[in-house]
């Protein structure tokens, strides 16, 4: 039975597909050939439609969101890094407690010796950063003075224990730990100030 091509068959032919029957039929049928030509013209007309320009500039919104998401990603990385460092510190602390218990004076003496060495290294750094001539904010000065006062008190305590006990005690070790921590804070305060001014 003779029939014409459907729209689907014509579009398949246009796309280089289609059945052999459809191809033969279009070759022989003027009506279907004309329909195929109309489909070509319709697509050409669609392609010739003018372009649009966006009514508003969307780049500022894209840029803002991009910056915001980058900031979020940085915070997330920092948070993960902090958690990892904290976990490592706890692990070290637990391990250290196991190795250097209060009942082993030799190991405790070794820890104090290491703390003293660490303290000296921090003081060298502190000497360098604290003697750079620069303007220091009032708030920072107050923090520095408070830290220095606490270190002075600790130094007095260390001197007293060393004079009275003449040996390494738990109290002495704890004072050295605290001293190292405070000097570290002092260095950080100075360095932060330098970075701030440098920026």
């Amino acid at each position, binding site marked *: 039975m003779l029939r014409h091509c459907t729209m689907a068959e014509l579009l398949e032919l246009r796309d280089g597909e289609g059945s052999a029957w459809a191809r033969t039929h279009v070759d022989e049928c003027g009506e279907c050939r*004309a329909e195929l030509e109309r489909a070509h013209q319709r*697509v050409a007309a*669609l392609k*010739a*439609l003018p372009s649009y320009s966006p*009514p508003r500039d969307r*780049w500022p919104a894209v840029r803002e969101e991009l910056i915001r*998401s980058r900031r979020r990603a940085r915070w997330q990385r920092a948070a993960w890094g902090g958690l990892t460092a904290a976990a490592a510190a706890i692990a070290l602390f637990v391990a250290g407690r196991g190795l250097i218990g209060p009942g082993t004076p030799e190991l405790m003496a070794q820890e104090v010796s290491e703390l003293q060495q660490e303290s000296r290294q921090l003081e060298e750094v502190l000497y360098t950063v604290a003697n750079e001539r620069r303007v220091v904010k009032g708030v920072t000065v107050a923090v520095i003075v408070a830290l220095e006062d606490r270190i002075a008190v600790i130094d007095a305590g260390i001197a007293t224990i060393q004079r009275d006990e003449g040996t390494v005690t738990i109290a002495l070790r704890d004072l050295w730990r605290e001293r190292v921590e405070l000097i570290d804070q002092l260095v950080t305060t100075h360095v932060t100030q330098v970075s701030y001014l440098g920026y």
Partner: protein
Amino acid sequence: MTEITLTALDELAIQRAKSGDLAALERVYRAYESTVYTQARRICRTAEDAEEVLQETFLEVCRSIGKFRGTAPGSLTAWIKRIASSKALIRIRHEKYRQTDELQEDSGWAGRRDGDVGLQLDLEAALQQLSDTSRAVVWLHDVEGFTHEEIAEQMGKTVSFSKSQLSRAHARLRGMLGEEEVQC
């Protein structure tokens, strides 16, 4: 002219854009904003939706361009258009469109006008009379050059669905435009 601009952009700015340089990313945006907006405008029903698609597309482009590995001429254009079509199709799948999709097809057609400008306006208006799905398929396949396989994948449908929507769209356009019989 457009191709020259896009080729130059490919060669000079893509590497910087891939590294996250905001100035280079803005150049990519400026080069493609009209292309993306036009594509979105043809697929979506409203200008506001097309603007949203434009923004979502470039957020995706800026976040993912570091992973873009295309080197062939035009591959960046194809990649960006693919992201834009995906965003536009997501938008037209939204509930409010689905509810009115079928109702849209037969309403408000005012008939054809005369002349080339008239034909353009007729075609614009006729496009708007199609269902969202048919309009998206005819535009993506016949104008943007997507294959039925690509359209089906993006729509989450079959290739047959895409083909039937295309022939349906052509039949509808033909009817609305009242195309004259071509004499052999």
